[in-house]
């Protein structure tokens, strides 16, 4: 039987991006990488520096997940969207604090941090970024 639990070392290593949208940007072509790399996957450049994506962006498109793997079953139905952050980087992330009928292409979204999943056996909680409709002033 397949196991769908959290791989704890992998979760721990991924904290900078999952918590703070921090990664590495190629100084030669500007490509953003979510995890440490020696060589840019786009241009082959070797000068990469730490950088952080903007926490604001706009929604490009989305889909609703109704049938999920066991780790995510408790959260169904949930929304996964393609977001373009203010610096132009495209990332995929869950959308929260909204229903599908509230969403539209181009709407302003902002990053927040939420529970992503809970490991079945160890009960470790994996936290990470999700996006939500930008909070508006009343």
């Amino acid at each position, binding site marked *: 039987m397949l196991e769908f639990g959290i791989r704890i070392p992998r979760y721990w290593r991924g*904290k900078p991006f999952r*918590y*703070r949208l*921090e990664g590495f940007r190629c100084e030669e072509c500007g490509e953003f990488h979510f995890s440490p790399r020696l060589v840019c996957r786009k241009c082959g450049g070797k000068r990469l520096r730490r950088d952080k994506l903007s926490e604001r962006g706009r929604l490009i498109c989305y889909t609703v997940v109704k049938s999920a793997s066991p780790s995510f079953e*408790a*959260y169904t139905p949930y929304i996964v969207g393609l977001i373009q952050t203010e610096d132009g980087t495209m990332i995929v992330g869950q959308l*929260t*604090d909204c*229903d599908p009928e509230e969403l539209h292409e181009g709407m302003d979204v902002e990053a*927040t*941090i*939420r*529970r*992503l999943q809970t490991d079945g056996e160890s009960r470790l*909680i994996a*936290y990470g970024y*999700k996006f939500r409709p930008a*909070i*508006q*002033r*009343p």
Partner: protein
Amino acid sequence: MPQIRDAAIHGYGGYVPRLRIKATEIARIWGKESGEVPIKEKAVAAIDEDAITMAIEASRYAIRRAGIDAARIGAVHVGTESKPYAVKPSGTIVAEALGIGSNITSADYEFACKAGTEAMQSIIAMVSARRIEYGLAIGSDTAQGRPGDALEYTAASGAAALVIGRETRDAIARFEYSVTYVTDTPDFWRRSYERFPMHTSRFTGEPAYFKHTITAVKNLLAENGYSINDFDYFIFHQPNVKFPLTAAKILSIPLAKVEPGIVSDVVGNTYAACSMLGLVKVLDIAKPGQRILMTSFGSGAGSDSFVITVGEGIEEKRERAPPLAAFFSRKKTIDYGMYLKMRDKIRV
């Protein structure tokens, strides 16, 4: 009791989840009269939220208002009675999520609904003692009430955070005095491995909430020479709406000075965040020079009372993050079934 030296609020933030359940919906399920409910509605954390995620939300706004590099924060203290982990600190997750460095002190505080102001006390002391430049004091809770219990109408979710540092001209507000009053009182408790708290109606009101709240306020006024007229706002812990208004009546405080700090009518009792959210709501409207008396209450039992004077920095800094009213208007009402799912009350 102690005069507070050189400690001020530089940033504040409040967070209320989007989901609400009306008290009349809970009354409908349990066959109670809708006219007897203690509040209008309460905030419910979504299934992907907990005390840690809400602490991060509130702290993010507090740091944004302070306008400081998060790396200058030297302590992250979280007051909560709904820690997601029995053993694993909440503050380290909050610190790492916000880009606060690792050379900090971090602790979770527990004193029922007073845990948030306990965190404030320790951060104020560390700042005053010049152990840290800035510290983050947080109150955050996803309060739990047993289904059918009286607490279920009010036990709610929310968070508030303060960035506290030394006094400067651009500070939002400065702390002047604080008083704490505690006794061993069996009004409310939760044993290890128990999911829901127990409470005794015999002790809930007079011997617990009113005795500690009113004694703390009276001690503070008597020891520091203040009178009711010296304050523009009074903020109390709010297990419901009736208790803080009754405390005000006992102390002869005009209701107009209490009502601006009331949040429990529309978000419920957010436990460790409750009086701190009242402070956030008042700071959203307060003017430089105005004076606030804030008094928390935590079962078990005790009260912290603070004198806070609003500073010149308030006008510019409060615009840097959404006001609490933005979270009051951002809401989706759910029914009792969805509420049970969101708060993990369905076990199969």
